C-alpha cells in the first residue's frame, strides 16, 4: 500500500500448470486445480517436490496474515491435530505486477460430512459428533473459538473415519467478536445470541451443521415466526436425528457452556443406543427358538383334537 490512490488490487485467479514462486523463500509450487473459494481468497491444489499441498492466495494481504497467525498459534497447542498444518508463508509477484500474499498448508483428502453420512448411514452421526466436539474442546481450551463452523469446513478422512476442521478464516480469540461467519450457522442471524466468541457460539453451529445434513439446501429465517420455533420444527422433521434431538435442542438454546458437557451427553447417548442394540440382539436370539416351540405346541394341540375325534363315534 504505497499509495492510497492506487487502484484496488484485482482478485487473482491461478490457472492449471501455473508456477507460483515465493519472493522470500524461493519455493516453487505448480497449480493443479482450484479446490475452494471463500470470502477471503481461493485455495488451490498444488504440487511441491512431487507432493500435493494446498495453497491459499488472496488479494487481501491483511486477511492472509491473520489466518497465518491463527495457524501458527494452533501449531503451538498441537500434539493434537487442530486444523491443517502450515508449511510455508510467502509473497508472489503476479504477471500483473502486483504482489499477492499466500500460504501453503497440508493437503487433506476426505469427504464432506454430508456425503459421508449419506454413504455410510446415520449410525455414524453420534460418533462424528463426539469427534467434532473433542476437537472443539481442545480448541476452546487453547483459547480460541472456531467461528465459521459449517459443513463445508468439516472434512471426514477415511480409514479410520476422522473429522478434520479445515478453514481457520473465522477462528477468533475467546471474548472477541466473531470475524467471519455463514448466516445459516450463525446464532446472530437467527437472533438466538450474540456474535461474541465463546464456546456456546461454536456449539450452536454444531447443531446447525447436523441439521444441514438433512436440509442440504438450507432454509431462511421467517419474519413473524420466532427462530426458536422454526428450528424446533425443522429438527422434529429430521427423523434420522431423533436420538440426538435433546442434545441438539440444548445446543440451539445455548444451554451448553462447554464442548465437554455436550460431548458427555453425546457419549451417553451412544452408549444408551449400544446397550439397547445389544438387548435387542438378545431378544432376537430368543425369538429364534420360538418357531420350533410354536410348531410343537400346535401339533400337540392338533393331535389331542385328533385323538378326541377318534374317540367320538
Amino acid at each position, binding site marked *: 500500500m*504505497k499509495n492510497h490512490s492506487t487502484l*484496488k488490487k484485482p482478485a487473482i485467479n491461478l490457472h492449471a500448470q501455473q508456477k507460483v514462486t515465493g519472493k522470500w523463500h524461493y519455493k516453487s509450487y505448480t497449480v493443479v486445480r482450484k479446490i475452494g473459494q471463500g470470502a477471503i481468497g481461493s485455495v488451490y491444489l498444488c504440487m511441491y517436490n512431487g507432493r500435493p499441498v494446498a495453497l491459499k492466495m488472496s488479494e487481501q494481504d491483511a486477511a492472509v496474515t491473520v489466518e497465518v497467525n491463527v495457524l501458527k498459534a494452533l501449531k503451538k497447542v498441537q500434539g493434537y491435530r487442530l486444523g491443517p498444518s502450515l508449511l510455508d508463508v510467502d509473497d508472489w509477484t503476479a504477471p500483473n505486477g502486483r504482489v499477492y500474499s499466500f500460504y501453503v498448508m497440508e493437503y487433506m483428502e476426505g469427504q464432506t460430512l454430508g456425503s459421508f453420512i449419506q454413504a455410510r448411514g446415520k449410525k455414524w452421526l453420534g460418533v462424528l459428533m463426539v469427534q467434532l466436539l473433542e476437537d472443539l474442546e481442545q480448541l476452546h481450551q487453547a483459547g480460541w473459538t472456531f467461528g465459521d463452523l459449517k459443513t463445508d469446513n468439516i472434512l471426514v478422512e477415511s480409514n479410520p473415519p476422522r473429522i478434520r476442521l479445515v478453514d481457520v478464516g473465522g477462528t477468533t480469540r475467546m471474548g472477541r*467478536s466473531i470475524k*467471519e461467519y455463514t448466516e445459516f450457522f450463525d446464532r*446472530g*442471524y437467527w437472533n438466538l445470541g450474540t*456474535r461474541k466468541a465463546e464456546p456456546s457460539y461454536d456449539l450452536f453451529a454444531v447443531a446447525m451443521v447436523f441439521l444441514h445434513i438433512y436440509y442440504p439446501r438450507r432454509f431462511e429465517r421467517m419474519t413473524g415466526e420466532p427462530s426458536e420455533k422454526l428450528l424446533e420444527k425443522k429438527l422434529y422433521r429430521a427423523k434420522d436425528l431423533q436420538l440426538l434431538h435433546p442434545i441438539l435442542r440444548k445446543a440451539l438454546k445455548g444451554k451448553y457452556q462447554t464442548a465437554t458437557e455436550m460431548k458427555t451427553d453425546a457419549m451417553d447417548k451412544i452408549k444408551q443406543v449400544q446397550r439397547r442394540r445389544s438387548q435387542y440382539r438378545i431378544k432376537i436370539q430368543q425369538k429364534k427358538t420360538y418357531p420350533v416351540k410354536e410348531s410343537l405346541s400346535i401339533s400337540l394341540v392338533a393331535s389331542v383334537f385328533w385323538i378326541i375325534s377318534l374317540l367320538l363315534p
Partner: protein
Amino acid sequence: MNAGTLKQILLLTDGCSNKGEDPAIVASLANQQGITVNVIGILDDDQTEQPEGLQEVEDIAVSGGGVSQIVYSERLSQTVQMVTRQAMTQTLQGFVNKELRSILGKDQSMEELDPEKRGEIMEVVEDLGETSDLEVVVLVDSSASMRDKLETVKEALFDLSMSLNARVGKNRFCIYRFPGRRSDIDLVLDWSPRLDGISKVFPKLTSGGITPTGPALRAAMYQFSKKQLRRNSDEEPFDIEETGY
C-alpha cells in the same frame, strides 16, 4: 490500551450520482479529515451485468481511503460488516505504516517486511481493531430505484450493529438518507450505540429520481462533531506509542 476513535462513512447506493459536486472529490476531502469513506453498491437480484454507473462506487472508496464492494442485495448483511471491518483494518494499517516509515525510512511499509515480521505487526493491528472505538455515519440512497432494497438495507444495518457490538471497543452509529426533503440529507436515526430501534424509524423512504451523492457525502462529513475533526491531517487520531504492546 488506548486506541482512539475510528470514523467512517458508509454509503449504500444502487447507482450513479447525477447532481452536485463530484463525490470522489468530497470523499478525498473527508479522508484528509481522518474519515474513511466506504461504499457498497447494491445490485438487483436479477441484474446480471454490472452497470457502468457503479464504477463510481470504487472511485469514491479509493479516494475516501475506504473499501468498496458491489453485491446482490441477498448478500448485503455479510458484506456490510465485512467492508466495515476491512476498512478499520486498512485504516489502522495506514497508521502503522506511517509509524514504520518514520522509524525505518521512507520506503518501508508492512508489505515490504518479511512475512514473519508482518505477522507480528498484524497482531497489533488486530488488537487495535478490536479495542478501538468506532463512529459510523450510515448514508442510505433513498432514490426511487432503492425502494425494494430498503428492507434488506434495514436488516443489514441491524446485523452490522450486532456484529460490531460484540467487539470490546465502543460503537456509535447514526443514519441519514439522501436526498432529503429540503436539505441534502435527512436524519433517520441520531447517534446511538445500537441500531435496535431501527425497525421503528426506517420509513418507506423513497424520494425522486435525483441522486446527489456528492453533496450528501459532504453533509455526512459534518455529522462527526466538528471539534473532533482534525485541522491538521498529519496528526494521528490516536497515539500508536501509547498502545502498550
